């Protein structure tokens, strides 16, 4: 019940946004995420943006995965 993908908002017209997902573009509704801003990354599920993606956290996660040996069992 959870198929969702991250995408970047490249256009916003009131409650309708255009998102870019690795080059693929789609219109999604912002009815559930009205505060979403142009340029933000959001999680998209069945044509709706449902959550903002924290880019800082993305960076941290990627760093963590790359440097796992350092973070080994604290």
């Amino acid at each position: 019940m959870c198929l969702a993908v991250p995408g970047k908002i490249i256009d916003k017209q009131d409650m309708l946004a255009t998102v870019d997902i690795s080059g693929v573009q789609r219109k999604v509704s912002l009815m559930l995420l009205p505060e979403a801003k142009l340029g933000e990354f959001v999680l998209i599920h069945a044509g709706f943006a449902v959550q903002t993606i924290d880019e800082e956290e993305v960076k941290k996660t990627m760093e963590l995965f790359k440097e796992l040996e350092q973070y080994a069992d604290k």
Partner: protein
Amino acid sequence: MSVARIQMAHGSGGKVSHDLVKNIIWPAFANDILGEMHDGAQFVIGGARLAFSTDSYVVKPLFFPGGDIGKLAVCGTVNDVAMNGAVPLYLSVGFVIEEGFSIEDLKRILASMQEAAAEAGVYIVTGDTKVVEKGAVDGIFINTAGIGKIIDGITINGKNAKPGQDIILNGYLGDHALAVMSERHGLELPQSVKSDCAPLGDLVASLLAAVPSIAVLRDPTRGGLATTLNEIALQSEVGIIIEEKDIPVSLAVQAACDILGFDPLYLANEGKLLVFVDKEYTPQVLKIMKAHKYGREARVIGTVSHAPCGQVGLRTGIGGIRLLDMLMGDQLPRIC
């Protein structure tokens, strides 16, 4: 099969399609040539070894990025013939056109067909045109049948895969399927995603001239790479393992699949081919492919093993192996 009516899944190229053909259609015509279960029929007439194949094209939309129904109708059948290790020579074409269809569109399609035929080096030598009432078909349906001469000394057969062989693919997967369905699903694809529809006869001829011992050739069309590999694994009674990290799928195609819940390994391609060949010839095959316009992204994607018999496994990016089954019905967009 217990269903009483044809469903869309029967046309998807997956297991349900296979069952329809195997259990209902083939038995009606049973004969040895049909029994070979290859992409086309192979037979001998007056000493000449020939390959013969047919396909019908009902794609919607008619015009899509990278091609149209006409180009598809020529390339599809040319490729089917070529996959028999044959040089495609002549095509027939049958049109079933809906009343009210635009003559301009028809001309566009015909021009496309001729362009593809010229590139493929084939002649469209006979045909038929039928017109039906509005609503009886959706725009236009095209059937093409093709005949070609099997190259001397070549025996390509789905039963020839053997343990130890490499499996080589000539390029990116899923572009055709996405180019065709993007409009339907409200996706706007980047310019780079176009149908890969292309005539592969020339590439096949070059490969066979240099490496006549190529065992299997097949184009992963409907049902995708996964289904085609399963068919070969079953026919040859071998196991196949492919490496996820080596399978070429563009970012955009992967993204579209992620959005809709599709798996690129099951999407149709119209300009791709698989080569099964003994490892010692792999460098040569790759060299020829990469030098060819339709093989620049060629690479080895897997190998043939003894076991598990008739099964295809995918080694994933994290090192696990999962069963890669045949397409069951058709892929539907999902939210789960």
